[in-house]
């Protein structure tokens, strides 16, 4: 998989939120987006997912332009802010309804994904009664359960306890292979350094620094 971001600019209500971004992302890498609040990390992730369309430039995934050749990436798992699950359904039921769209995975796979993030698939509690941490874990489970080729996680460690952080870290490392692109954003530089082999720093909607991060195995 290859993502090419060419001259990407996005304006919202006359504010430039992404400013002439040029990036190439390749399979087999875990990319870390870093930067202060409002630097454009989430907006860039949205642009890659197709949730926002560029004012100028384009995002190509395997030479197909988002917003022109396709509306959304073909095989993506995404967590950006809190996902809109159905509040009167349990966690398992929510994941089941999502998985029923593409029918790639079984109930067992859903259960496995929930257990991996530290949720109980037999929990009958409705999503509206979930804590912030549980909501975050369910969002991660939804993003990873179908083994997507493009995995985008915006601040995945928010609201998670230490044990859950370890679990999510292991999931991210397990999901990484030579075909997949994983993009995460995080304010914890220690996590970014542990997980990502390429770190992209954004500021005021621009890419200001890209560096290789050699992770010790």
């Amino acid at each position, binding site marked *: 998989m290859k993502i090419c971001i060419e001259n990407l600019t996005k304006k*919202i209500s006359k504010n430039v939120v992404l400013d002439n971004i040029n990036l190439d992302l390749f399979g087999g890498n875990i990319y870390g987006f870093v930067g202060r609040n409002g630097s454009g990390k989430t907006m860039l992730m*949205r642009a890659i*997912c*197709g*949730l*926002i*369309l560029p004012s100028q430039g384009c995002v190509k995934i395997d030479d197909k332009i988002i*917003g022109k050749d*396709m*509306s*959304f*990436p*073909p095989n*993506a798992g*995404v967590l*950006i*802010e*809190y*996902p*809109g*699950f*159905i*509040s*009167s*359904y349990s966690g398992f039921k929510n994941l089941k*309804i*999502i998985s*029923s*769209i*593409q*029918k790639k995975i079984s109930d067992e796979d859903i259960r496995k994904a929930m257990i991996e993030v530290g949720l109980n698939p037999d929990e009958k509690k409705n999503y509206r009664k979930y804590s912030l941490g549980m909501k975050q874990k369910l*969002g991660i489970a*939804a993003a990873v359960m179908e083994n997507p080729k493009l995995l985008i996680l915006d601040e995945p460690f928010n609201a998670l306890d230490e044990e859950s952080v370890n679990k999510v870290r292991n999931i991210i490392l397990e999901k990484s292979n030579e075909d997949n692109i994983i993009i995460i954003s995080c304010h914890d530089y220690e996590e970014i350094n542990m997980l990502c082999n390429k770190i992209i720093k954004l500021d005021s909607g621009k890419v200001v620094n890209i560096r290789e991060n050699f992770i010790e195995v």
Partner: protein
Amino acid sequence: MKNGFSVIIKRFIVEGIIEKWKLFLFVILLFVSIDFIFVKNVSNIFNESELNVKVGIADMFMNLFLGNPPFSSEENQGINIQMIWFVFHSLIFSFVAYYATNDLKNGSYIFLIKIKSKIMWWLCRVLWCAVFVLIYYFLFFIVSCAFACLFGSISFTPNQNIAGAFWELDLTGLSNYQFWFSVFFLPLIISIAISIVEVTICLVLKPILSLIIVIGYIIVSEFYSEPYLLFNYIMILRDNFMGIKNINNEAAFFIAVSIIAFCSIIGSTIIKKKDMI
């Protein structure tokens, strides 16, 4: 594709209708009030009459969709807006505006990315509007049936005595088809059409502005009797079961269906260029 469609429409129905049961409870209470007051008024008027007049389902619909005569500056009178008619329709469009794009702000991207189609989201939204309005009208029908069972008669034919005493209407020669077409099917399809117009406007403007535009359109319809003001066709005192200014009710039905088709297509074009946040 079929799976995606059924999942999205299921989500809209669960979130936009089933989880909003408290709003529907409020609506039911409103309908109970409307029908109760009407039944009581009929009872008061005919209490001492020799005529055994009982309110039927048809009469309750007539009471709701009566409307008011158009405004005339020559008559030196104000305009009497039929409040139950106004509230009945305003509520529909308030509910629709609230949920029109609410799910996009609340993280429905997770479904969008799986179905991979903005147009499918839009068409599901159009279908949801139709289902919502249908359920709203059906609730009024159910409440009216309940009142008819308890206090009146289960009659689908309007009562001439009531129509004459309350509204000076002459129903001679009016067929049941004409009646029910004018007080149920036509208002239903026009409400669906306008709700879809409202949701289409929500794609480019904030929902509150869309609601203001629709409410403004309703208010202008209260003042003027013109065929392009579709709410005129939902007022019996205006269309008299026939039509407005040479455009009959059947034609209005097809105009409403055309509006639905037109907005569905326009919305599909707009949604492709819209940011889904």
